[in-house]
Structures are given as C-alpha cells and as structure tokens.
C-alpha cells in the first residue's frame, strides 16, 4: 500500500479558516484516491472542536494530533522539529499544507530538514504513476507551472488559498478518534526572540465581508478618503493595490494581493485598479467583484461581475451618496 497522504493544519495559526482546511482535505482526498493511499489529518497544537465532524465529512482514515507547550505560541522552530519527527516515524507520500503566512516559511523548512522536494502556491495535484504533478501559480498568477515530483515520497506542497473548492464526500463516515502522538521537543530552543509582538488594530481585511479598494487610478492620496468613506457607508473596509502602499498613501496592512492580504469578501469594489494578476490573487475569491476603470480594456473587467467605464474620482462621491440613500430608506 502506498504511504498515506497527510494534510497538516496548525491550530495556532489564526488565519486558517475552516474553508481552507476543507479545501486541503478535498485535494488530499483526490490525491489519496488516485494513488490508492489513505488520507490522514495531522493536527498540530490544541485540538479542535469542529475537527471530528470535518474529518468524517472528508473520509479521513486517521487523525493524528501532536501537542506540546512549545507549539502553543506559534513559533516556527518547534513546529519544524515536530513535523520532521512525525515524518520520520510516519512515512507519507505527500505532506499537504494550506499556504498562509506561517506555512510559507515552515513548509520549505520542513522539506529542507527532510531533504525532500517542495512546491508552494499549489493549485492542483495529479497522480501519474509514481510521480506527483503539482500545478502552481507563477509570475503572480500570469502563468501556471507544472512540477513533477518523483515518488515514493514524501514531498511537501502548500495549497494556495481559494484554489480548490471544498467538497465533502457523499457518504460522510464516522470520524476516527484522534491519536495523540508524542514528540520530543526538549532540544528545541527558539532562535528568534520576539521583542514586540504584532497586534492587530481593529478588524482585519481577511475577515471583511465588503471591501472597497483603490488603485493608482485614484490619482492622489487625498482621493483615498473617497475609498474609506464608501467602505464606511457600506459597512466594509478599505483596501489598496501595492503602488499605494509603496508610495506611502496607506499602511501596508491594507495591501491586497500576492504579497499582501488574501481576501474573500462578498463584495470587492475596485476603483482605479488595473487588475494585474498579483493583485487579483488577493481578491479573486470575492463572490462579486465590481470594477471602475477609465480603460474599457482594463484586465480587471475580465474578473468583474459588474463594470463601470468611467472616472472613479467622479463616481465614488456619487456612490457614497447613492449608498447612503439606500441605507436611509
């Protein structure tokens, strides 16, 4: 029997919504099915109340859990060591992560520690005999590259957010009880000391239901106020494309995209944004995209549900008015 496919999630990582865990389990199940292996789920850190139900819905054959006080504060050295020990005692065909801020560093470090192949930005995996063909986004999403990783494994893949739609199995089974596993982290000394912890001020773009974003088409930093005002009237948050952050118009916590926030709002309204793939990576999961751009051929219209060809500095004040009138009615 082929070694199992292991989906690894880390409960200390706050920005890992259930949808993403289920997306990874969905892809994991497809791969395990195609190579005749079992699907296992490794939970690192405190156990999760929703865990058993989700495991049942995705045909997980075995749930393993690793916990240790050193894993609770979310620092990487302990996590990497725990995973390396796990892989040494539990051979696997594939170790699959959701890609997020933490795993962007941890996944390649685990691969480095084990001396095995790693692919980030994964969007799909196909099984071809002994080889896994991993599709990954490149050039910010302008292209896809297919990477071949020869078996027997293991190999490490991080799945890009929003790349796979979560799909539970038809026949939901009973979830297996989690097996508690021991790891020895006594030798791990975190080599990076936190002097000042990050603290979010207020709500996060990642959690926003409505986002109004501005791009270079706004023309001047003052016009960003229009973005903030419209966001406010709609009960949402303001976002931005990278040039605005690079120019210092707005704080980097507002940057949407490949090297910014990956968002999934119900409404994403983009004003004066061209629609470069590096930006779209951060908002293409929005249920509805509305674009305002002076250029009828702007790429953003290919992604938008509703489009307005026009000057956003003229349209935004009117939208603020129209939206507040709707709010008053």
């Amino acid at each position: 029997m082929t070694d199992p496919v292991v989906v690894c999630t880390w409960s200390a990582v706050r920005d890992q919504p259930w949808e993403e865990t289920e997306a990874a389990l969905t892809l994991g199940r497809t791969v395990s099915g195609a190579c005749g292996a079992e699907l296992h789920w490794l939970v690192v850190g405190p156990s999760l109340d929703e865990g058993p139900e989700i495991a049942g819905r995705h045909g997980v054959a075995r749930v393993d859990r690793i916990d240790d006080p050193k894993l609770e504060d979310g620092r990487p050295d302990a996590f990497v060591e725990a995973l390396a020990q796990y892989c040494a005692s539990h051979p696997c065909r594939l170790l699959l992560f959701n890609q997020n801020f933490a795993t962007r560093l941890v996944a390649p470090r685990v691969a480095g520690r084990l001396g095995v192949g790693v692919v980030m930005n994964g969007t799909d995996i196909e099984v071809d005999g002994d080889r896994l063909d991993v599709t990954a986004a490149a050039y910010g999403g302008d292209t896809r590259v297919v990477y071949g990783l020869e078996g027997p494994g293991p190999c490490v893949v991080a799945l890009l957010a929003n790349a796979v739609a979560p799909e539970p199995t038809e026949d939901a089974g009973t979830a297996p009880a989690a097996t508690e596993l021991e790891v020895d982290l006594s030798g791990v000394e975190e080599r990076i000391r936190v002097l000042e912890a990050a603290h979010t001020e207020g709500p996060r773009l990642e959690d926003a239901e409505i986002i109004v974003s501005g791009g270079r088409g706004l023309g001047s930093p003052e016009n960003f106020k229009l973005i903030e005002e419209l966001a406010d009237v709609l009960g949402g948050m303001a976002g931005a494309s990278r040039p605005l952050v690079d120019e210092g118009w707005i704080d980097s916590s507002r940057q949407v995209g490949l090297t910014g926030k990956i968002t999934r709002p119900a409404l994403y309204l983009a004003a004066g944004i061209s629609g470069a793939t590096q930006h779209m990576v951060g908002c293409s999961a929005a249920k509805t995209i509305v674009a305002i751009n002076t250029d009828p051929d702007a790429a953003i219209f290919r992604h938008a549900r509703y489009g307005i060809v026009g000057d956003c500095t003229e349209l935004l004040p009117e939208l603020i008015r129209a939206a507040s009138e709707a709010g008053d009615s």
Partner: protein
Amino acid sequence: MRIVVCIKEVLDPDAVNAYALAGRLEIGDDDKTLTQTTIPRLMNGFDEQAIEAALRMRDAGTDATICVVSVGSDLTVPLRHAMALGADEVVAIEPPSSTGDYHTVAALLAAYIRSHGGADLVLCGRQASDDDQGVVPALIGESLGMPVVAIARDVEAAGSAEAPAVRVTRVTPDGDEIVEATCPAVVTISNELGEPRYPTMPMKMAARRVKPTDVSATDLSLDPQALEPRVVMTRQFVPTVKGDCEFISGDEPADVADRLVRRLLEDNIVRGRSPR
C-alpha cells in the same frame, strides 16, 4: 559583519504583466518557456531591496562587508548593478546543469557560504517574481543551520561585535512584529522596506570594469546527490480567465451610481438598512 546577499535574475515582471494583461502571453513549443524574447531580464525586485537593506545597515554605522552572490549564467549585468550600488564583492555561481531546481540553487548558495568566508547575515528576497516560490532562503537556512526570519521591512544590527545579532521588523498579517536573532541568520526582505537607491554615475562607471568572481559547482566540492533536482518543471501554461462582466452605464455619474447600488441591493450584496 559579513553580509551575503543572494540575488536572482528574472524576467521583468511588469513586462510579463503587460503581455498578460493584453492577453498576449504565450508559451513556446517546448511547453515551458515564454515566447516573448524581448522581455528584459533584471534583478528580482525584492533582491534589490535586500541589497538596499545591507547598504542601510552599513550607512547606519555597522562595519559590514557586502558580498552579492547569484546562481545562474550570464550574470554580468545584474552583478555589475550590485557592484555599482556598493557591494564589496560580486560572485557568479555557474550551475552544473540547466535542470537544477530550488534545492540545487540553495545547495550551491549554502556550499558557497560555508566554504568562502561564511556569513553573519544572509539576506534574500522574500520570493523571486518569476516562480514566486519563496523557498530558497528557507532551504539555505536549513542547510546551514541558521534561523530564518521571513518577510522583513527593516533590519538593524544588534548585539555586539563579538556576538552579533540582528533586530528585524517583520510584516505579519497582524501588523509589525519586532524580533531579534543571534547571528548567523537568514533574513528575507519584503517590498515594505521601501525604494532601493539608484547607483551614482561614478559608481556605475567604476562597476563597468568589475568582473564577477566565477565559482563553479566543482569548486564547491559538493556531493553530487545534493545537486540532484527534486522538483522538475514539466510544463508551463497561461491560464484562461472567463469573463462575464455586465457593464453599467448612464448619462451622468449619478445615474450610473444609482443603477449600480440598485443592482447590488437586488442581488442582496449590500443591505438596504444602514449597517451602523
């Protein structure tokens, strides 16, 4: 303090974007490379910022030598640029074959650092704008047993001359985090660091005469197994985006705005009552 900055030469991402935005990005008959041969090659933007981070440390008074290293072929242009910016030494490592992968690149860089004077600080870009993988710095860190501080907007020298350390401001999803790592360490630089400087004309002129130090894989006496690729690119393609945009127009911006808001209300995307 010896700072090694790892740089990669990539296709100009703005030019690649321009082709993609115009729907004209194409892959050649080999199923792997972009057909647009006119796209210029340049230093990965984050790597230019990594050099900038090193220069700022030196400007701030840190006694630092800056060595810029790259794995690839035909690297004179980006390495001269590094020299003009103020690097003390530039090094080109010729890969043993074109089939190498990130592991091969990381193995070569780690071997170079190990055998050529070590490093107190290894600076990398957060990711290369062509492959976007962001794995090479992590692999270097693992190979050299150094901690990896990822996604920095600021790096400062800390500690003492005998026990150097770095204080790094990281850009996290929850805001900035300030950490300290004992050297040697790997730090990856993100765009929040800000604009890199331009070389001055005299520096550019002087750099023209510089030849990079060439190092080959054999000079690094690496175990051939360490250079075996683990990940092989088999294909590249351009994904298609299906568009179904409905354009909303009107005589005046006010009409257009009213129409759009009505549409969003009908679709239940925004609520009719004031949310606050």
